[in-house]
């Protein structure tokens, strides 16, 4: 008989699992979101630790970009089956699209609480046509992406078997464009040398893809009660073969790009790049690049661990955390060197620690993403059976 702990593929066992997933996420949303909304309602933006001293974009923007890029990466992974026709990726195609929408919802919710006039953005952006602004393109592209992703998922829910969907073509192109534009938002800022550079959109693309594979690994195992042996043969083959190899290759690329930028930034004497010295003198950088990138890379390089379920889940989780640290250090670090801000900014670098409200937004984003995903899997058949 199926029970709560029975994830073996029994229909009611899976249903119970996703129901629990939904309810736990809902609780997180109520607690974390309730606290954040209450703080924002009573204190306004004073509930955040961003100030006019120079850190204008804090943890909520880190979260938004993290969720958004994970979402676009997941669509690109789904496109490996839907667009490129690689049959091996069919077992995870539906899951990737579901996770993409869930992540997007979490990120957009956080952004809406951070922006002071988010609804105005919906009309003021398209009506004013500031085509020079990367943010103009990002807002338009994300709008189109959200609508198309919802349509694609609605279609897939109605169809029990996964078949190539031609709508994923434009969806994947939108995902690619959003990822590159999101990188340009920072990469075009010549006045902030820490961010500036043509390689930043490429860095974002690699991070988006590696993050998507990490989420695919963790959630595919979650769907099977973290039991590798309970996966279907085709899914297990994918995870032990092409997906694990691709994951390893992308982690290596991510490591090289990140370490390369750190070394050149640390070596350079240019004004504005001293933030690399600061980052390299703290533990977070080494946790992000060493523990959360090198360890999974080694695990995915060694044949024995590459095909091991526990090693895959560990690698996935570490990469998820490592990417979050990298995004945090990148966005905050780029603002730490004071410009001509004011006579009160006398420090070499501006300090920033997220407030409790900002951390609560992390809980809210994770909660909403998991709630959407859990509900779709529980009630709408939004999960791959494989």
């Amino acid at each position, binding site marked *: 008989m199926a029970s709560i702990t029975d994830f073996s593929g029994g229909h009611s066992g899976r249903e119970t699992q996703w129901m629990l997933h939904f309810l736990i996420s809902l609780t997180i949303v109520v607690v974390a979101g309730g606290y954040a909304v209450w703080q924002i309602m009573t204190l306004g933006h004073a509930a955040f630790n961003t100030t*006019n001293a*120079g850190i204008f974009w804090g943890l909520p923007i880190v979260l938004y970009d993290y969720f958004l890029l994970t979402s676009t990466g997941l669509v690109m992974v789904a496109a490996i089956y839907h667009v490129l026709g690689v049959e091996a990726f069919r077992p995870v195609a539906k899951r990737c699209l579901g996770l993409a929408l869930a992540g997007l919802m979490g990120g957009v919710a956080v952004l809406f609480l951070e922006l002071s006039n988010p609804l105005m*953005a919906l009309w003021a952006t398209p009506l004013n046509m500031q085509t020079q602004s990367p943010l103009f393109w*990002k807002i338009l592209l994300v709008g189109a992406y959200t609508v198309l992703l919802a349509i694609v998922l609605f279609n897939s829910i109605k169809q029990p078997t996964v078949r190539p969907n031609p709508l994923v073509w434009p969806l994947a192109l939108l995902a690619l464009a959003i990822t590159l534009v999101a990188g340009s938002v920072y990469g075009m800022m010549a006045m902030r040398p820490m961010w500036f550079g043509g390689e930043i959109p490429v860095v974002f693309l690699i991070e988006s893809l590696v993050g998507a594979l990490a989420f695919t690994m963790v959630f595919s195992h979650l769907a099977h009660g973290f039991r590798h042996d309970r996966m279907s043969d085709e899914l297990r083959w994918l995870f032990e073969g092409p997906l694990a190899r691709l994951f390893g290759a992308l982690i290596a690329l991510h490591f090289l790009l990140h370490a390369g930028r750190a070394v050149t930034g640390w070596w350079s004497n240019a004004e504005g790049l001293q933030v690399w010295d600061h980052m390299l003198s703290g533990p977070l950088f080494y946790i992000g690049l060493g523990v959360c990138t090198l360890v999974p890379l080694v695990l995915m390089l060694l044949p024995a661990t590459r095909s091991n379920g526990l090693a895959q889940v560990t690698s996935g989780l570490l990469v998820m955390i490592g990417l979050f640290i990298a995004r945090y250090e990148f966005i905050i670090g780029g603002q730490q060197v004071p410009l001509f801000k004011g006579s009160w900014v006398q420090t070499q670098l501006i300090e920033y620690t997220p407030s409790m409200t900002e951390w609560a937004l992390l809980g809210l984003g994770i909660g909403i993403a998991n709630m959407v995903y859990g509900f779709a899997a529980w009630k709408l058949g939004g999960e791959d059976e494989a």
Partner: protein
Amino acid sequence: MAKWGMVIDLETCTGCQACTTACAMENSRLPGENWQDVLFYSEGDYPHLNVSWLPRPCMQCENPSCVSVCPTKATFVDEGTGVVLVDWNKCIGCKYCMVACPYGVRFYMDEAPVVEPDVKAAFPGEGRRQVWNPPFRMPDEYADPSKGIGVQPKGVVSKCTFCHHKITQAPEGVADLDEDDPETREFTPACVRVCAPKARFFGDLDNPESNVNRLIAEKGGVRLKEETGNRPKVYYLSGGGSPVVPGQRSKRRS
């Protein structure tokens, strides 16, 4: 059509902050969040100490990065004056302009104050959007939210307007706005008007006869951070001495 610009003579400036105070009074600014400020830099320890200062308004760039990045065109260049303004009715509070301004001269009011005590709390605003109600509030007839003039509301970004509400009343075709000229005194930006040692000059950069053009040419006016390509319309006269602003990295370690 004038192209208004400013010249600041660093050899004459005493760092008294009268400009900062006048700007705050004229434009209903929150203490500490100064559209115009004088930044102080110190290197070394007493007695081997070097103190320098830099008056810093918005540079009113000709090629402003804050305008290029604004997704809603809330930040725009005013055609008649060349002044960069913010339309508070269109600003979504994304703060991209704050990130993109190389000179750090944009402000968002609803966060924790950068200096204590919190004056906003002492003079609370009314209604949904008013952050505070300063006792030295600008007369309502001058306020224009579509140009970012008046008491800054919640959720939007603000910046120096070159006292747009004053300079647009100046007689047509005038070359300079000078506090010593009774004809133009009233229309001179507040920071220029109160500068006791007369370190600030304001005029039309497109007018070859203007005093600001003469000063820039004769005394070698320089602009900050030329490498960004923003092309400020604020020029500094430094007497040809050391760089205007020490970079963080070029400072002597104390």
